[in-house]
């Protein structure tokens, strides 16, 4: 095998390509290597409005050892590396901005261990929410599931601070991580959490405390610091009784107060605060027609709660009813019903909210889906202003006002999101969406909303506005871990 180190500039790009190809094939085998144009094309874009960019190679390793070899080689040759599993992050985060090697991790799809006493499972990156759900259905435990297609990666969403249907109780998904195994850009394998001491014993991955918490070197770094190859995620006992309530309301401030009241009672698993357009979208109203019409309830809340006994269930329901009565006093046309009624009227797609993870077909069937997904303060004024500001902008650009927000971790912070479908077939629509996103970002950031799964172009702007010392620390960490800048380069505005 030819050596590429230090002489890349002297080589013709085709020769360099051949050397990298040869090396990658040696590591993963010919079957799991591709540089065919059609393969590269598919990894060059996703469902979002983010601009496409082609990789040069795709590999599908099966083991941590193979990934160590890939990263060691990429580091020596200064070749960019982009980790990929399903590419459904809605932030364009697996688009290889600087080309290089896409490391598709979907073959690493084993559930390695289930520790029932300490309630965690150890999984590989290719394990999807669907597969974890199927595994846990045979136990008395549950994981959390996002409102996303079942075949997205648990590890990717956990690392990217994704949210889910237990986020009201536990916060974003990174808070469920006990520990990880990761490969650093130089090929070193590290273990973080209690597994740093007893890594070979899967029964001792029970916490990431008490020690300096190095998990932060990987969460929300968008694959810029290494590739996570194993993760222990917490699971929780499944309660035997589970139910849902839907609240239809008209007054934004009173509805938001109702949300706050309920979160403070600490009785719910989850509470969603949505606009009527979101419900219409979920119910299957075609793209472009999910609009608010005069006389309709403007807001819809979904309350998810569970109990161990009938008594506990009834007590919780009683507290929900009391909170709702207070809402009705100030928002007289507000109504509350159960999810079965909604399912009867609108069909299985709405009822499937009970069966997460599910694919919301109508959200995903126009070629384009993106969001302005942020975490923000829970202050009423900020949320209400945020909604008004966002709705005005979405109107200006003629898209649908699908608010899909959620209280996080007992209402310590708020997941403030707008789901935006668009058609990639319609001339100019992708560009129009880019402009809307730009304006949404600028306006909501001013109101205290911080985008998560942040697309590179917004991250760059955040760096300009952020405290320079924070930015310097970020850059120092990045350059220390990844001095050659090979890992998902271009993300977070860091070159």
């Amino acid at each position, binding site marked *: 095998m030819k050596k590429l180190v230090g002489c890349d500039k002297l080589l013709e790009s085709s020769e360099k390509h051949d050397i990298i190809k040869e090396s990658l094939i040696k590591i993963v085998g010919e079957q799991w290597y591709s540089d065919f144009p059609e393969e590269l094309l598919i990894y060059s874009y996703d469902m979002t409005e983010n601009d496409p960019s082609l990789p040069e190679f*795709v590999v599908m390793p099966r083991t941590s050892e193979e990934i160590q070899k890939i990263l060691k080689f990429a580091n020596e040759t200064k070749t960019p590396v982009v980790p990929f599993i399903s590419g459904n992050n809605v932030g364009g985060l697996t688009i290889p901005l600087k080309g290089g090697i896409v490391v598709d991790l979907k073959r690493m799809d084993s559930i390695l261990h289930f520790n029932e006493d300490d309630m965690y499972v150890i999984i590989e990156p290719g394990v999807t929410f669907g597969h974890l759900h199927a595994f846990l259905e045979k136990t008395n435990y549950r994981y959390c599931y996002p409102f996303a297609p079942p*075949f997205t990666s648990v590890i990717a969403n956990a690392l990217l601070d994704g949210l889910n249907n237990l986020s009201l109780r536990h916060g974003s998904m990174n808070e469920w991580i006990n520990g990880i195994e990761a490969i650093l850009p130089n090929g070193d394998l590290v273990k973080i959490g209690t597994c740093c001491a007893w890594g070979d014993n899967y029964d001792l991955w029970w916490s990431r405390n008490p020690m300096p918490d190095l998990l932060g070197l990987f969460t929300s770094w968008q694959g810029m610091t290494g590739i996570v190859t194993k993760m222990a995620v917490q699971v929780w006992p499944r309660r035997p009784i589970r139910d849902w309530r839907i609240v239809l309301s008209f007054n934004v401030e009173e509805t938001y107060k109702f949300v706050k009241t309920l979160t403070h009672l600490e009785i719910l698993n989850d509470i969603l605060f949505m606009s009527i357009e979101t419900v219409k979208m979920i119910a299957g109203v075609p793209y472009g027609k999910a609009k608010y019409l005069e006389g309709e309830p403007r807001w819809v809340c979904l309350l998810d709660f569970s109990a161990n006994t009938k008594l506990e269930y009834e007590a919780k329901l009683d507290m929900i009813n009391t909170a709702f009565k207070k809402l009705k006093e100030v928002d007289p046309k507000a109504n509350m019903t159960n999810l079965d009624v909604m399912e009867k009227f609108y069909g299985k797609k709405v009822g499937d909210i009970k069966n997460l993870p599910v694919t919301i077909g109508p959200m995903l*069937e*126009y070629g384009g889906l993106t969001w302005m997904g942020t975490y923000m303060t829970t202050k009423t004024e900020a949320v209400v202003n945020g909604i008004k500001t966002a709705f005005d902008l979405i109107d200006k650009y003629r898209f649908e006002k699908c608010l899909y927000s959620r209280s996080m971790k007992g209402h310590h912070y708020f997941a403030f999101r707008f789901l935006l479908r668009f058609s*990639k077939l319609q001339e100019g629509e992708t560009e129009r969406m880019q402009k809307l996103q730009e304006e949404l970002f600028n306006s909501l950031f001013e109101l205290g909303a911080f985008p998560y799964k942040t697309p590179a172009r917004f991250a760059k702007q955040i760096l300009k506005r952020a405290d320079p010392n924070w930015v310097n620390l970020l850059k120092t960490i990045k350059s220390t871990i990844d001095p050659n800048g090979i890992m998902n380069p271009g993300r977070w505005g860091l070159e």
Partner: protein
Amino acid sequence: MGLRMSETEAINKYVEEIYCCTRCGTCKYIYQVYDPSCPAGVKFRFETFYPSGKIHIARGLIEGKIEWSERIRDIIFACPTCANCTIQCQSRHHAQIVEIIEALRADAVSKGFGPLPNQKAFADSVKKEHNPYKEKHSDRIKWAKNLAIPQKDKAEILYFVGCTSSYRQQSLAQKTVEILNKLGVDYIVSSDEWCCGSPLIRTGQLEQVSQLINHNLDLIKSLGVKTVITSCAGCYRTLKMDYPKYTDKLDGIEFLHITEFLQQFISKKKLKFKKGKEFKVTYHDPCHLGRHSNIYEEPRAVLNAIPGLKLIEMPRNRENAWCCGAGGGVKAGYKEWAVEIASDRIHEAEQINAEILTSACPFCKTNLQDAINETNSNIKFMDIVELLNEVII
């Protein structure tokens, strides 16, 4: 956005459907069950081999971002078009996924990148002998040599035998007519039946298709029959689902799969069975009969009527059934790959301790039997007509 669309390309008919797909991955596994659904995807794992990947290849071709190549041909033709993706996909284009893949195949053929050599041989043989097996047309009903098939010009029903049962899996044809004879059905078999067109439609070789359809329809009309029955899932799918796309001259002709036809006798209790001992049978849904034509319960009704037969289901059954691997020209194009897919199915049948694996399609029989041989399995394969004929009086 610049779309490179030419009127001659079959795929352009599906532009709207192609742009529906966000590659969300739902087509990759059985929805809310999470078992694998796509044989090619599971085997090759790269995104392009999954149904969504093929749709995005189509998009790349339309946008002029990629060019036809032998690898694209292989991706498109390695798919057995089992239509499992059409069930699992939750998006509004789901029903058209197989049509998109078949349109890609038609374009591959018209651009000289397809079909595969063995598939091309189908077309040459069909042109010469009206069957894809290079057999003489004059030998088409040689399988009936020692059987009492009705010798008449007109009847109520035509048994459309199909090329595979006529030349390769002759037992299916023989057992079918034995059953029809036992039931006293007024039927006819024609020596001038031509290939239904399925092997050509499935592999994008559309040049002769209209001619085949016209011939077969003329034949059906000349015989004065109102009902056409077939024991081949491939013929059934083609007659029932494809013919109406090519012609509006079907004039109320009813096409029935033999299991649909037999179920009518069962519901009227007109079948008489021998007494039998208990045996465990599992049923493999042929893709062309199940997902393509929505026939799931009729074969099960036939099996459940057999005394002593205990029908047990494989985990993946009905609309979620794992493909046998023979369809879509894969058996001819990629023989080993076809048997590999079938081997998974044999393993699934073994796991539930079935003694007999049955199905309702000569293609499934060929490939599942090949996989039984390849894996040295002890399971016995019998087509549903073979099974039924043994137990009825």
